[in-house]
């Protein structure tokens, strides 16, 4: 069971404000992963925001690109992007759209949005790091719906067989996939592909951090997947679940209710 504790309220509010200002965005998808991404940037990833291509950085790819608001607010918090960048979300001349763009956004390692690309691209980077004898770690966050794409399992197969122990995938298991294909035992699928599998509460930072800190990253080992049980829209009850809010902009009244819930 996932408890009712709501973390990162300030970032959730910022996401909603960006959607209001930009008149577009996927709030529930971002709320589903905001706690995971916030933990990664605060406690896990090595990076230098002033030098996003720092050679010794850990790599992070948000493969479910439509959850990008959760990435943007963290890139902003840590200094990769500016206040002005945030203000220009979904505006002509801005660098932030509804999917992360590697060619525009400092810190975005991949342009995602078309589902099923991120893990395959990530294992290419992970293999490249291994070939070069580098110790950088590779993290990639996928949606559970995205795991219906065949390329995810192509990549899962290669990563295990090529022993990409420098790779950690995180699955945002918010049950979106089960709306379409209800038989969906996510941990068992990854176990069947031979990965190290951990199941965590994706809204519990302590639990996630404990698991991540115990992963033995190395250049010749078994890749790890963290299946994170999450709630789409987590933090505001009216947004939670798989209904109309997937890609909806709150009106004035709804905005007030959301902000009150996050107070």
């Amino acid at each position, binding site marked *: 069971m996932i408890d009712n504790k709501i973390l990162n309220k300030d970032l959730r509010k910022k996401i909603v404000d960006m959607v209001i200002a930009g008149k577009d965005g996927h709030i529930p998808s971002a709320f589903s992963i905001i706690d995971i991404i916030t933990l990664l940037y605060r406690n896990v990833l090595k990076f230098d925001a002033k030098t996003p291509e720092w050679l010794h950085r850990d790599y992070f790819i948000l493969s479910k690109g439509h959850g990008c608001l959760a990435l943007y607010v963290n890139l902003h918090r840590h200094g990769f992007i500016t206040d002005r960048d945030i203000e220009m979300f979904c505006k002509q001349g801005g660098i932030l759209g509804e999917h992360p763009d*590697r060619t525009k956004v400092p810190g975005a390692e*991949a*342009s995602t949005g078309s589902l099923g690309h991120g893990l395959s*691209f990530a294992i290419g980077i992970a*293999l490249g790091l291994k*070939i070069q004898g580098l110790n950088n770690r590779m993290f990639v966050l996928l949606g559970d719906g995205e795991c219906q794409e065949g*390329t995810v399992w192509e990549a899962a197969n290669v990563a295990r067989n090529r022993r990409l122990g420098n790779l950690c995938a995180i699955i945002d298991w918010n049950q979106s996939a089960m709306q379409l294909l209800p038989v969906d035992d996510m941990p068992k699928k990854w176990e069947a592909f031979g990965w190290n599998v951990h199941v965590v509460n994706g809204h519990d930072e302590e639990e996630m951090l404990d698991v991540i800190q115990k992963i033995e990253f190395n250049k010749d080992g078994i890749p790890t997947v963290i299946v994170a049980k999450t709630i789409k829209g987590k933090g505001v009850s009216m947004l939670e679940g798989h209904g109309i809010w997937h890609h909806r902009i709150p009106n004035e009244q709804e905005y007030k209710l959301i902000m009150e819930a996050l107070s």
Partner: protein
Amino acid sequence: MSKSTRQQFADTMLAIGQENQNLVVMVGDIGHGMLKPFAEFCVNRYYNIGILEPTMISMGAGLAASGLCPVIHTIAPFMIERAFEQIKLDFCYHKLPGNIVTVGSAFDYSNLGCTHHCYGDFALLKTLPGTEICFPASAIEFDGLFRQSYQNNFLTIFRIAGASHDFNFKSEDIVFGKGICVEEGADLTIVATGPQLKMALSARDALHSRGISVEVIYIHTIRPLDVKLIRASAEKTGRVVVIEEHMRTGGLGDDVLRAIYDIPNLKFHSASIPDKFVTGYGTYEELCESIGLTPEELLISISNWFDT
């Protein structure tokens, strides 16, 4: 017997791989015999990655993002057509450089049928900003074109022809992005790419016997195309034929026509694969004949150009 273009691919990989520690070769379960020397000398830089072309392409882009120089090799339809979106987004949109080497384009695998044919690859790839396309049909061309382009900032696709034109170019003739004037002439320009240079030269001989002077231009680099050379020839002769193993739509012929359409009184003919599936079996030569890629058919098509 001269070395095959495909064997040259393996030899070039070995030679460059020994000099350049960043060269990484991934194949989709073909070519491992030929590439065995590369695998032995270039330890940890050869991967027979599996039968999963979309992921192989994405991985290649990832290798490039990590600072390496990827060469990805398998059968044309499974990379260019099946993995098209991976090429488009993971390489081209990301502006990541790399190299794709295909075999089995057009109907080189003649008896394997339509699943193994790929005659729309130029058309598809030309829609992608940041791609370069070569069609080497001899060993010396592959080696020269690859060495000149493999480290540049683009995704370069090398469409290795199964057949050869059997024309002996000198290595200094091979300049990436530059066409080759094989023979100068005054009455008609034939632009040929790939093994079809052989047909162009046969047609030239037949036309010469009728007193028609033919200029033959050979194109090994489809993109960037040597428009200057082609246009200068077309302005001189006013009659242009393009011969290629590609669908009429989106092939070299379209690019040539776009480059010369405004030349007054221009006559143009495309000898290419009709816009339909090639469903027959037999040898490569028999399939060429079945779709009219022969000197005889070409001469019939342009017979009224010289009546007056």
